């Protein structure tokens, strides 16, 4: 796996598990509004990567996968938005979601610099790494830390989709070994 994919995956895991000292958070534990913001951000990041893939790739497997990522992650965002409206909660931007966005922007620059088969491989490698990191974060941090039962249930409900995305990405990744 390319170094920048590992770096991005590690930074997702690091900042979800530990928060960031530079923002002097009192606790690394995330509140429900912060968890909602992290969940929406994580989905939006994959939508943005998929839109780039649809622009740059000519490989049908990559394009179809990217379309699925856009549709599925938007469906998750819609579910999350509906829930926070129902609970009258405002997603709270936080150090974790900000760092995720910053790292995603760096990854996007790297992907934009590539083309052809190099881009296809880089994109799908990143998708595998990213989904592994998000699955780990949701399973081991967001779900245990969520206080509201409906938020916890939503996070549990999205796990099968995340795992299927990972399995699908790994299947496509074999074509670019």
């Amino acid at each position, binding site marked *: 796996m390319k170094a920048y994919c590992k770096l991005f995956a590690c930074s997702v895991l690091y900042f979800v598990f530990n928060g960031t000292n530079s923002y002097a958070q009192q606790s690394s534990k995330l509140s429900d509004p912060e968890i909602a913001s992290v969940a929406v951000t994580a989905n939006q990041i994959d939508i943005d990567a998929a839109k780039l893939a649809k622009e740059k790739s000519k490989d049908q497997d990559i394009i179809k996968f990217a379309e699925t990522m856009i549709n599925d992650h938007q*469906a998750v965002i819609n579910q999350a938005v509906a829930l926070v409206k129902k609970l009258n909660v405002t997603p709270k931007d936080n150090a974790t979601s900000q760092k995720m966005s910053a790292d995603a922007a760096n990854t996007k620059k790297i992907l934009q610099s590539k083309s052809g088969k190099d881009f296809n491989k880089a994109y799908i490698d990143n998708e595998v790494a990213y989904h592994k990191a998000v699955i780990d974060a949701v399973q081991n941090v967001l779900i245990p830390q969520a206080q509201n039962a409906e938020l916890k249930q939503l996070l549990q409900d999205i796990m099968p989709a995340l795992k299927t995305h990972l399995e699908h990405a790994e299947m496509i990744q074999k074509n670019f070994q």
Partner: protein
Amino acid sequence: MIKLNRDVKNYVILLSLLFFNNCNFDVQKDHPKLYVIEIKQMQFQPALLKVHAGDTIEWVNHDFVTHDVTEETNKDWSSSPLAAGTSWRMVINKNTDYYCSIHQVMKGKLVIDR
């Protein structure tokens, strides 16, 4: 009035039971059934289903993402996209491997029980 002895009566009863048992079996074959496969948690549930030729299968999407149901080997048929909460039916006449062409790792199998 003809009096039937006990052996003859038993023989008639036995023949009648055998006859009606066969009739019931034929009736079951002639009336196709409807089976429901739930699309839930990114799986076809049940993933393997044994049916009879002529039975109808209904796939119901209980997930919040869109799926489809597509014949896997030759792409002979497809449901086209099934949004959350929607369903699609098809009559099955042969063994079939199918999948979701949107989430290609989701697979199912229909086996004709002869």
